[in-house]
């Protein structure tokens, strides 16, 4: 009995004999691993409910490029000219794309196949974003640990693994730049903070290489190259200049500059456009400041003043000469260009029509961030109260991210990492204060003193905080499951008894195109569907989501908005073989082409104001109606005819009181039921009438003339009055 007791104690001793530091690192590792696992699994809803498929629109182009990369090799990809997009213009893919995403997926695919793990490139693309979410959690942990402490770092990692703001752009199947770009962003910022803290060139070069990866991955790298100079500038203003800062920023700017210009899409922009001028300006300022500091250390005050005066006048002269030279050669960086993006949004219809570019509502902030948006100002306050070099950085990051997130819904993504970090700092400070034994602290309160908190209030506060965190986790999972896990290529609706009804019309139509049309057939559709047609149907398209050529899109818009004969002329000139439209009237799908029609008209009107007028498509009272009271221009335009061809005979709902031809999306009985098409014929309509494809008929042979009409009257013989000189 006694020996058994001793033996048990001995075994327990063996297990729990580690040092506290050892336990701490084991715990950190386990928590980070679980965060990675949670982040990965949370993003798999769409794959489990449907299948492993690429979602949305843009990822289809990324997938097609990655496929091209994996089959043809890196140099073929870099020099790829795609003639199956933007017919007849084509697209220089190598020079107009950020290759980081494709190269990452291609590299992983290559390595796995090298090890004889035969994974299809589609699966690599689908699961890339969830895997990188784990890496993002780890880099957020590292960054927050540099800013505050390890506990805050672990909290931040857990937050960013499941927060909906980040999940929305990195679910399994969403194969888009943001999936890897947020990881590159956090990792670059971590290395920057590390290099400012240590002043070591090694960490700075690491930061430059990570910055290079970020430049290759996303256009949002401009945020880094403006935030870091801002940080340096604010530190200079706060009299926090140090040699470590000089080493970190100068090396980062120069090596980062030359690295960023290696990406063909970026090219020479870093020294030409106004978005990059802040970095150059701060670089020059820092050199001047450092040199002046060096002189100040060596000379007396008066000597320094004389030299300073000379130096300032020289510098002013150099700046003046440079400005004259630049205006003379016409190479001034265009400052109003980027500032006017907000105004461009209002005046250029294409930019305004993208739903992601709309201003953010309060609802989106809470929906995407839940309690983090409430606690992150507290974290910001803690950072500012205990200021040091790196906390200045995170404060500036927070302020600029909040501004940008308020401008565009899409930029909520850049706000999410900093909100996670600052909330983690807030939670960590609260837990530190209210958890744990007061006696074990560095300066414990004396016995019987009124300082220190009673155990009741400590446990109440801790319980409340834990409840908040649990509600956060539940909210995140619910939002991910309901809002952000839709592949949008496949639609699902749920019946009264809970069974699922899948609408696979899109893929049905694209596969029909793929298998029943000529390989070189050209398909005209609105630009939203361009990438999907190119990816799934593998046919040449006229316009796609890249929207780089506004006049080409306006031509397509004009064809859709004009009557059939005028549209036929345009389609002939563009060699169109098939026209594809989306029609939601049978099932009540609200994202169809008739709902987007006014944007087509506006864009066409921008380029062809004499032929297309938006007001023609409204009733005299100013309403947009598709029933009998609709405007005749609308009822006769090509889009209307194609959408409602044969729809007038269709009994849409089972309820026989609704007339045939009742449009469930617009809730109106259509006006023109007897539609005849002269130059098009219906090629395919999907099961629920969602996708309708029409074939453009070739021009008819000229009618054979009657014999009588064929007689050509005998011409007068023409005798020349000229004299022939032999």
């Amino acid at each position, binding site marked *: 009995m006694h020996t058994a007791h001793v033996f048990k104690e001995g075994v327990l001793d063996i297990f729990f004999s580690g040092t506290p530091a050892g336990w701490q690192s084991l715990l950190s590792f386990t928590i980070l691993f679980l965060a990675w696992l949670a982040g990965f699994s949370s993003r798999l809803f769409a794959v489990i409910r449907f299948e492993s498929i690429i979602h949305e629109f843009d990822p289809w182009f990324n997938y097609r490029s990655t496929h091209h990369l994996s089959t043809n090799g890196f140099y073929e990809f870099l020099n790829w000219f795609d003639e199956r997009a933007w017919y007849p213009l084509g697209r220089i893919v190598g020079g107009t794309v950020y290759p980081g995403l494709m190269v990452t997926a291609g590299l992983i695919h290559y390595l796995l196949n090298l090890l004889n793990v035969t994974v299809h490139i589609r699966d690599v693309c689908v699961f890339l974003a969830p895997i990188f979410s784990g890496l993002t959690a780890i880099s957020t942990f590292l960054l927050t640990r540099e800013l505050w402490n390890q506990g805050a770092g672990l909290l931040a990692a857990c937050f960013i693994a499941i927060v909906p703001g980040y999940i929305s752009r990195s679910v399994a199947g969403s194969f888009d730049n943001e999936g890897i770009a947020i990881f590159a962003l956090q990792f670059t910022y971590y290395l920057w903070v590390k290099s400012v803290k*240590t*002043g*070591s*060139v*090694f960490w*700075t*070069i690491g930061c*430059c*290489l990570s910055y290079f990866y970020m430049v290759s991955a996303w256009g949002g790298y401009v945020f880094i190259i403006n935030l870091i100079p801002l940080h340096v500038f604010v530190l200079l203003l706060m009299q926090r200049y*140090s*040699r*470590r800062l*000089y*080493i970190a920023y*100068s*090396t980062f700017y*120069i*090596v980062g*500059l*030359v*690295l960023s*210009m*290696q990406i063909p899409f970026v090219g*020479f922009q870093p*020294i030409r456009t106004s978005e990059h001028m802040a970095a150059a300006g701060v670089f020059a300022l820092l050199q001047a400041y450092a040199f002046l500091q060096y*002189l100040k250390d*060596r*000379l007396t005050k008066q*000597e320094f003043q*004389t*030299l300073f005066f*000379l130096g300032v006048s020289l510098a002013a002269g150099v700046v003046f000469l440079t400005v004259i030279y630049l205006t003379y050669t016409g190479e001034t960086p265009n400052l109003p260009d980027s500032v006017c993006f907000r105004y461009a949004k209002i005046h250029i219809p294409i930019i305004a029509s993208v739903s992601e570019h709309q201003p953010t509502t309060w609802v989106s902030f809470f929906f995407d961030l839940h309690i983090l948006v409430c606690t992150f100002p507290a974290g910001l306050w803690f950072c500012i109260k205990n200021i040091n070099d790196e906390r200045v950085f995170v404060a500036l990051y927070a302020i600029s991210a909040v501004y940008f997130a308020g401008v565009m819904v899409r930029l909520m993504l850049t706000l999410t990492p900093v909100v996670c970090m600052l909330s983690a700092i807030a939670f960590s400070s609260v837990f530190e204060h209210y958890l744990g034994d007061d006696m074990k602290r560095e300066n414990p309160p004396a016995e019987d003193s009124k300082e220190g908190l009673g155990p009741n209030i400590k446990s109440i506060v801790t319980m409340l905080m834990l409840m908040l965190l649990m509600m956060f986790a539940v909210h995140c999972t619910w939002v991910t499951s309901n809002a952000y896990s839709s592949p949008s290529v496949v639609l699902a609706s749920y019946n009264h008894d809970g069974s699922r009804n899948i609408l696979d019309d899109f893929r049905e139509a694209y596969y029909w195109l793929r298998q029943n049309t000529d390989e070189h057939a050209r398909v005209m559709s609105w630009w939203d569907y361009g990438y999907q047609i190119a990816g799934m149907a593998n046919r040449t398209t006229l316009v796609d989501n890249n929207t780089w050529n506004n006049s080409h899109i306006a031509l397509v818009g004009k064809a859709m908005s004009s009557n059939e004969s005028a549209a036929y002329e345009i389609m002939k000139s563009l060699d169109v073989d098939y026209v594809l439209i989306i029609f939601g009237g049978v099932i009540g799908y609200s994202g169809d082409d008739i709902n987007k029609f006014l944007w087509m008209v506006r864009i066409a009107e921008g380029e062809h104001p004499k032929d297309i007028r938006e007001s023609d498509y409204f009733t005299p009272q100013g309403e947009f109606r598709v029933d009998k009271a609709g405007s005749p221009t609308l009822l006769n335009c090509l889009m209307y005819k194609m959408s409602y061809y044969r729809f007038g005979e269709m009994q849409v709902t089972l309820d026989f009181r609704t007339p045939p031809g009742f449009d469930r999306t617009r809730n109106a009985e259509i006006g023109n039921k007897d539609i005849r098409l002269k130059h098009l014929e219906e090629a395919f309509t999907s099961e629920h009438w969602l996708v309708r494809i029409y074939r453009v008929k070739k021009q008819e042979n000229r009618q054979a003339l009657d014999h009588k009409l064929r007689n050509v009257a005998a011409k007068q013989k023409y005798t020349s009055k000229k004299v022939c000189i032999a």
Partner: protein
Amino acid sequence: MSSSVISVISRFLEEYNSSTSTKLKVVDAYLLYILLTGALQFLYCLLVGTFPFNSFLSGFISCVGSFILAVCLRIQINPQNKAEFLSTSPERAFADFLFAHTVLHLVAINFVG
């Protein structure tokens, strides 16, 4: 005014000669050489024109980069700054210098076209 500037500069040069160690003077000579090379490249570009622009940029940025890296090395091995760079020995500073130069020149060679 100008005489005082000249006297300031001459006094500065005298003090520089006496107080800086030989190690730092070697680095300073290297800095001067890099500066002259960069200035020459820029002058050449002004005279001959900017085509091909990537080659000019590659050479010029390589010069500026080498200058900056040498300045960083000088800061880190200067014994007066030892308090700020406790964990960085001069050997470590030189190793970082070599690593940074490798990266810089690899990129410059890729960019020169």
